[in-house]
C-alpha cells in the first residue's frame, strides 16, 4: 500500500466509524462544481457509508447564470457592431432563442477568450468594433474582470464594456439556509469551495457558521482532500457541533487574497443578483461602480432587467439548490444530453447533470459504474 493509499484508508475508516455513530442520514452540500466533478470522477459515492449523502450546490457559474442574463448576452452579440467575448462554456448555454453558438453561426461575432485581458486587447486591436466582455464567475474569476476594467480605464478605451454577471457565493449559501425550512432542504454542513476561498478567505464563512449553526469545511480538489474534508464534516455532525475548518491551508489563508479583494472593492459594489433557480438574492451580485459606468455594458447599452422565465421542464434550478437530482428531471438522458443540452447543468463540464450523465448510477439507487478511489479500508 502506498502512503497515499494508507492515508485514504485511514481517513475512510474515520469517516465510516463516525458515520456509524450517527443514527440518521447526513447530507452535505458540495458547493463547488469542481468538487462535484472530482467526487464523481473518483467514485466517491461508492465508498461513502449509506447514511452519508453528497448533494450539489449552486457553485457552477454557468449553471447559476439566470436565463435573462444569457438572453442579454445573445441580444448584445447579435448587434452588428458588437464583438462579444466570453469564456468557453457560455457559448452553448441555450437562451430563450438559441445560444451564443447559434448566434455565431448566423453571423454574430462571438469570441472565446482565455483571459479578460484578451478582450481588452481585442478592443485595442479593433477600434471600429464595440467589444463587450460577458463575464460570469464567482470571486475567483471576478478579480480578472476588475483588472480588465482598470486596464480599460487606464487605456481610455471608448469601445470596451463589460456585461458583468459575477456572483458572491456566501449570500447564496445564506439564501439556501434561510429558505431551508420552506424548501425542505436538510443540510448537515457545507463542503466549501477551495479556489473561491483562496480569494475570500476562511473568515468569510464565520458569519454563516455562527448564525445558522452549520458546519463549513474548506476542501481541496484531490480525492483524498475531499475525503478528509468530508470526514471532518461527519465528525462534526456526530458531535452536534458547527465549526469552520480549513482543510486546504496550503492555498487558503484566513483573510484570503487581500490584493484581489481590494481590487474587487475598487470596481464592484455588492447588490442584488438573479440566480437560476434561486431567484433574486440580496447582496449576491457584483455591480460595477458608478466610477466605471462608461465601461458597464448594462448602462451603455441600456439593457433591460426583466425577469425571464426559465425553461419549464428543466430542473436545473432545483438541482443546484440541492432539491432535486438530475434523474428526477424527465429530460435527463432523453431530451437532454451533453451533445444537445437543454439546461446549463448539462452544458457545463462541471454541471451536476453533466457529471451524473457521465458517472452517475445508470439505474436510480444503483451503484456508480466507476470507482477508482482507493477502496483500501477493510
Amino acid at each position, binding site marked *: 500500500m502506498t502512503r497515499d493509499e494508507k492515508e485514504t484508508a485511514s481517513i475512510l475508516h474515520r469517516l465510516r466509524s463516525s458515520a456509524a455513530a450517527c443514527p440518521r442520514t447526513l447530507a452535505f452540500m458540495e458547493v463547488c462544481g469542481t468538487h462535484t466533478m472530482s467526487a464523481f470522477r473518483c467514485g466517491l459515492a461508492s465508498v461513502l457509508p449509506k447514511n452519508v449523502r453528497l448533494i450539489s450546490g449552486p457553485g457552477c457559474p454557468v449553471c447559476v447564470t439566470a436565463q435573462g442574463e444569457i438572453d442579454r448576452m445573445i441580444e448584445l452579440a447579435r448587434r452588428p457592431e458588437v464583438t462579444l467575448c466570453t469564456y468557453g462554456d457560455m457559448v452553448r448555454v441555450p437562451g430563450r432563442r438559441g445560444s451564443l453558438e447559434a448566434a455565431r453561426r448566423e453571423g454574430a461575432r462571438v469570441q472565446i477568450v482565455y483571459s479578460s485581458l*484578451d478582450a481588452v486587447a481585442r478592443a485595442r486591436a479593433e477600434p471600429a468594433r464595440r467589444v463587450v466582455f460577458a463575464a460570469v464567475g464567482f470571486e475567483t*474569476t471576478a478579480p480578472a474582470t476588475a483588472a480588465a476594467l482598470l486596464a480599460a480605464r487606464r487605456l481610455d478605451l471608448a469601445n470596451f464594456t463589460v456585461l458583468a454577471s459575477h456572483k458572491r457565493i456566501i449570500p447564496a449559501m445564506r439564501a439556501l439556509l434561510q429558505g431551508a425550512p420552506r424548501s425542505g432542504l436538510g443540510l448537515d454542513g457545507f463542503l466549501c469551495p477551495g479556489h473561491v476561498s483562496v480569494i475570500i478567505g476562511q473568515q468569510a464563512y464565520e458569519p454563516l457558521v455562527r448564525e445558522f449553526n452549520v458546519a463549513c469545511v474548506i476542501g481541496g480538489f*484531490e480525492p483524498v482532500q475531499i475525503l478528509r474534508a468530508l470526514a471532518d464534516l461527519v465528525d462534526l455532525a456526530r458531535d452536534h457541533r458547527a465549526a469552520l475548518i480549513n482543510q486546504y491551508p496550503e492555498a487558503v489563508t484566513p483573510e484570503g487574497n487581500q490584493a484581489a479583494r481590494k481590487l474587487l472593492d475598487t470596481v464592484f459594489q455588492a447588490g442584488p443578483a438573479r440566480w437560476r433557480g434561486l431567484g433574486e438574492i440580496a447582496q449576491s451580485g457584483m455591480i460595477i461602480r458608478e466610477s466605471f459606468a462608461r465601461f458597464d455594458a448594462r448602462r451603455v447599452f441600456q439593457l433591460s432587467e426583466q425577469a425571464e422565465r426559465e425553461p419549464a421542464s428543466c430542473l436545473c434550478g432545483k438541482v443546484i439548490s440541492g432539491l432535486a437530482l438530475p434523474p428526477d428531471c424527465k429530460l435527463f438522458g432523453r431530451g437532454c444530453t451533453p451533445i444537445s443540452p437543454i439546461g446549463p447543468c448539462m452544458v457545463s*463540464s462541471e454541471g451536476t447533470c453533466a457529471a451524473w450523465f457521465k458517472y452517475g448510477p445508470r439505474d436510480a439507487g444503483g451503484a456508480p459504474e466507476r470507482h477508482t478511489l482507493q477502496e483500501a479500508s477493510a
Partner: protein
Amino acid sequence: MCLAIPAKLIELKGDQGVVDLHSTRLPVNTLLIPEAKIGDWLLVHAGFAIQRIDSRAAAQTWAALRDLAEAAEESPPAGAKDRPDAAPRVTGETP
C-alpha cells in the same frame, strides 16, 4: 467551478509574466500576487495568478486537476475548437 492551475513563474516584467505549465508557456498577470517572483509556484486562474503555493502542494493539485481535465476532455466541452492553442485545455473552461 473555479479551477486554478498550479504553474511555475519563469519570466516577469512588471505584472506581466510567463508561467511554465508542463512545458507550455502561458502568459500570466501577477497583479493579484504583487510579491510573486521568478521561480514561484502560482495558482493561475483565467490568466491571473491568485495564490502562491509551495512546490509540493503544486504537485498534488496538479495530479488532481489533470484527472479532472481528462474527464472534461473525454467529451469535448463547448468551444473546444476555438481555444487558443497556447492555452492548456483546463484553463480554457469557464473558470
